């Protein structure tokens, strides 16, 4: 599998990178690297899907009063506050919330850069529809609402008027109480909900991710390609290295049949038995 795809295929091809549970700051560094690679046409579009450990992130023009509790309390609860370069105010990310970072050449998919957020909202609304939830937009407020409660947030950055990064988050079954510590998106008294809350039952993260991938492909007209060790290898070839690669690797890639075989032959293994150098 070559890194530099021929131009026609490259324009519509999108690699899916499921990172499992991944630190926000590390994911941001990865996004920046991938954005640069995309700008110089060294890789195709990438769709990153993951969950973050509990963190509040603040956009470029956040207002400090939108974090309602002291930083001391946040430290005690082990919640970081990370400044970012995306648009928007403050928001919460945590386990149970799927976060999606498309790193894409926007003009290949949208006539205007400003249509990009609309299309992301469309992806979210389509996913919700599959769960029989009516997702709605609100004029002047990006994101998606279900019955007047916010279920998904969007915050995007675009580099060189070409490649978008950051993206959106959709509440599947996060701990909603964290949202009470902030004015989410800078809006006071904003009510937050999740798929689990709206439906009154547990929802599998895996199912939501599958739907996001499928609707992203449909709405953006992209040919999705699930990653495996090969993309990790390509990414490694371009000198991308992430810390604690073993943990990330196992959380990120679920299907590891060769590991099971190794276990049967040699007993429990504590490191991957792979022909490739594990990356992340």
């Amino acid at each position, binding site marked *: 599998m070559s890194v530099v795809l021929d131009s026609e295929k490259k324009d519509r091809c999108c690699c899916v990178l499921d990172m499992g549970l991944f630190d926000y700051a590390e994911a941001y560094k990865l996004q920046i690297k991938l954005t640069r690679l995309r700008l110089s046409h060294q890789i195709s579009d990438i769709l990153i899907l993951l969950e973050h450990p509990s963190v509040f992130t603040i*956009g*470029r*023009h956040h207002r400090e009063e939108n974090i309602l509790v002291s930083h001391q309390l946040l430290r005690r609860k082990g919640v970081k506050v990370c400044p970012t*370069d*995306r*648009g*928007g105010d403050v928001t919460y990310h945590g386990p149970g919330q799927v976060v999606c970072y498309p790193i894409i050449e926007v003009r290949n998919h949208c006539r*205007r*850069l*400003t249509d*990009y*957020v609309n299309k992301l909202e469309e992806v979210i609304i389509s996913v919700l529809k599959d769960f029989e939830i009516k997702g709605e937009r609100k004029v*002047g*407020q*990006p*994101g998606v609402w279900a019955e007047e409660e916010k279920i998904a947030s*969007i*915050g*995007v*950055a*675009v*580099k*060189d*008027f*070409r490649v*978008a990064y950051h993206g959106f988050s959709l509440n599947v079954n996060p701990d909603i109480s964290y949202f009470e510590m902030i004015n989410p998106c800078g809006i006071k008294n904003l009510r937050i909900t999740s798929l689990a809350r709206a439906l009154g039952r547990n929802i599998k993260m895996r199912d939501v991710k599958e739907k996001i991938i499928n609707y992203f492909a449909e709405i953006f007209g992209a040919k999705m390609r699930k990653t495996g060790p090969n993309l990790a290898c390509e990414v490694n070839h371009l000198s991308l290295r992430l810390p604690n690669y073993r943990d990330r690797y196992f959380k990120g890639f679920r299907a590891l049949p060769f590991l099971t075989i190794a276990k049967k032959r040699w007993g429990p293994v504590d490191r991957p038995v792979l022909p490739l150098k594990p990356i992340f």
Partner: protein
Amino acid sequence: MYPEDLKYLNTHQWIKVEGAIGKVGITWYGQEQLGEILLVELPKVGEEITHKKTFATVESSKTAFEVPSPVSGKVIEINTQLEEDPSLVNKDPYGNGWMTKVEISHPQEIDSLLNAEEYKKLVEE
């Protein structure tokens, strides 16, 4: 839409060179791509900016667009009107929507920019 007296960067920024000073902004096509601009973040006076590197950010609804600079140099003046009325970039991109004035440090960079004809071709293809 493509003033002849300006030079252009392929990421939709323009520069008007007046001696050693360049006036910089976003082109008509560039602002059209962004939609309604709600916030403009400009560099500080005295700051050094670099050719093709981000020097300013404009925000529309929940999207932050990083704007690369056509030239390198020192910022000598910024358009403070944009703080009050960021939509000037949309309404008058070549006039009152100008963003910064730069003391150009590497004049040879201007030769690498597109002229009106070339920029028009880029936009319309």
